[in-house]
């Protein structure tokens, strides 16, 4: 057994040395944009928000994947990411080809070298995308596009109309005296701290918060305090969307920060569940489909991007999920002719007090000459809060 012990010790030492030496891949994306699309590789692995890649398994009538599979021969495997953090982690593994990333994931993915720039010439439907979604700070770097816009929306307040009148303010989510206390559902992600910041914008304007993602030390501390106070009235922290749906249906949750698709699903079984947007402001998202720099099926990935922003599919997902589409032609194809106006697809003023999910950085996002709290601190603070 002595020889075996030696082998074991040597291997262990070797592994430890490797561990110490091995750094990770350097950041920096490849600058070779593909010039033309080849044949599909037969499959494509996607990371997506729930409701974005529907193949009939949620509702048999809701399916824009089967048509894609038939047209291109690319079989779709989708992994649902419950939060942006999960999506970043999944993309880092290199196992997936494309991701529907919100603004709080996109820049991290770009900086980490996990996604590649996209040649929009290879995506014919890109031409029809609303101009004010193209080349934005969260989906492009120095004019180079890193993805195609999927659509945008605001986080809604889901509520049970039998438990009370529609909430008008975000204060109902945070105030200890809230009529909904004990039955409140909060999104379980560090990015929710921004919602606390919006609450402070409405209740403590003297803090001077202008951008809920640009918080200096004092503002951040106040936000964490608000969240700690909120804990006593929270009934659920959700990340799996069907969990919130089930709780809304059963009635153990009567108010929560939510997505339109959840409210739609819950109200099918419990018609009293409705959605509204807080007047003081809300967080939201403007999502981008991005392609992995280590994609094993790049051609299928490009084809998927083209498909999901095509007028028909984009209309389908915008209606199912409850958001504004990115393709201007989708507005004529939605089953509900008023969909685009309901979701303010072209209206710039509506989006003024919707704060898209963005990655907070040390350099304050509102341009202030101060030191803001970076996202890793948001994560640490959230973890401690939840512990």
């Amino acid at each position: 057994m002595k020889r075996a012990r030696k082998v074991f010790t040597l291997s262990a030492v070797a592994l430890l040395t490797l561990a110490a030496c091995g750094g990770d891949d350097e950041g920096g994306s490849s600058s070779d944009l593909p010039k033309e699309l080849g044949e599909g590789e037969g499959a494509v692995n996607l990371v997506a928000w729930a409701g974005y890649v529907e193949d009939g398994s949620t509702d048999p009538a809701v399916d824009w994947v089967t048509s894609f599979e038939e047209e291109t021969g690319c079989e779709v495997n989708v992994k649902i990411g419950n939060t942006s953090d999960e999506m970043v982690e999944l993309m880092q593994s290199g196992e997936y080809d494309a991701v529907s990333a919100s603004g709080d994931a996109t820049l991290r993915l770009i900086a980490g070298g996990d996604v590649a720039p996209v040649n929009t010439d290879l995506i014919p439907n890109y031409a029809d995308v609303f101009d004010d979604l193209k080349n934005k700070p969260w989906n492009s770097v120095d004019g180079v596009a890193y993805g195609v816009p999927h659509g945008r929306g605001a986080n809604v307040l889901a509520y049970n109309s039998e438990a009370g009148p529609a909430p008008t303010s975000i204060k109902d989510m945070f105030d200890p005296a809230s009529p909904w206390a004990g039955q409140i559902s909060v999104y379980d992600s560090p990015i929710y701290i921004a919602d606390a910041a919006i609450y402070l914008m409405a209740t403590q304007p003297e803090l001077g918060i202008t951008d809920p993602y640009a918080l200096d030390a004092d503002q951040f501390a106040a936000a964490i305090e608000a969240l700690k106070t909120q804990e006593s009235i929270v009934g659920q922290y959700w990340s799996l969307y069907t969990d919130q749906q089930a709780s809304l249906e059963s009635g153990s949750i009567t108010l929560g920060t939510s997505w339109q698709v959840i409210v739609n699903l819950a109200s099918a079984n419990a018609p009293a569940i409705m959605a509204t947007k807080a007047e003081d402001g809300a967080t939201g998202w403007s999502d981008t489909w991005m392609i992995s720099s280590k994609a094993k099926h790049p051609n299928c990935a490009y084809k998927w991007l083209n498909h999901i922003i095509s007028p028909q599919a984009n209309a389908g997902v915008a209606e199912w999920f409850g958001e504004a589409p990115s393709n201007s032609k989708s507005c004529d194809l939605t089953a509900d002719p008023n969909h685009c106006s309901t979701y303010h697809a072209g209206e710039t003023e509506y989006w003024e007090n919707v704060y898209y999910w963005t990655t907070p950085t040390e350099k304050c996002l509102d341009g202030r000459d101060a030191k803001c709290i970076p996202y890793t601190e948001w994560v640490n603070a959230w973890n401690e809060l939840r512990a």
Partner: protein
Amino acid sequence: MVSGPVLWLVVVYLGSLALLITSAFFRLDDFTGKSTSEWTLANLDEAFTTGAYRTLVVRSVLIAAAATATCIAVALPVAFYISRLARPWAKRGLVVALTIPLWAGYLVKAYALRAIFEPGGANGGGFLNSVFGGSPGFGYTATIVTLAYLWFPYMLLPVYTGFERLPDSLLDASGDLGAGTLRTFRSVIFPLLIPSIAAGSIFTFSLSLGDYITVKVVGGTTQMIGNIIERTLLAPNQPLAAAFTLWPISIMVVYLVVMSRLGAFKNL
């Protein structure tokens, strides 16, 4: 001959553990979310000195201990009955009946228990709520009961085996010396069963300590150490997650040493 293939797997497993532990010493790049090659003790500091996390660990240990205690409390009388009082032809059937649930699927059982503990609300719902008009709801009780339920067979089997090995003569002698049932149990049976109980508790305690899915399903807003590891890993912050894993690793190593003193390894 014997050692070769075994050693390979040992190296893969133990090597991975070693790699994991060393990865806790690297600094995370704030913006990209990837590990750098700079050494730092910050992760360990965060994981081990932050008050909130210490409370979390204590809470996890207590929940795991409570689940284990529940398993022991139920397994002892049940195993005693099956081993000593049940008809011989029924014994195997009873043991099998109690271990079948192992095959039913962890997730399915967890969600079934969720349906049982659902507090309902305006729209009713929930099994306990419908039958008894109320339910402890999602939280510590539900978590401990669910964990005990899930891992019960792992405690029952070794304890049952332990009972089977108890020689009748000892029990008879105890009775002859004038001890009642409870006294015999306390002074004769229980001490002899300690190794079996210890062996069973290794499974129930460790499975409960590290569990993060059950807590998400029936625990309401409760969090355990497994949740913080998962959450941190998915942040993504792999080095800090690795630092957190040092908690259950050290707890289990200590636990194994204690159980081994109690004779668990001679009785697995």
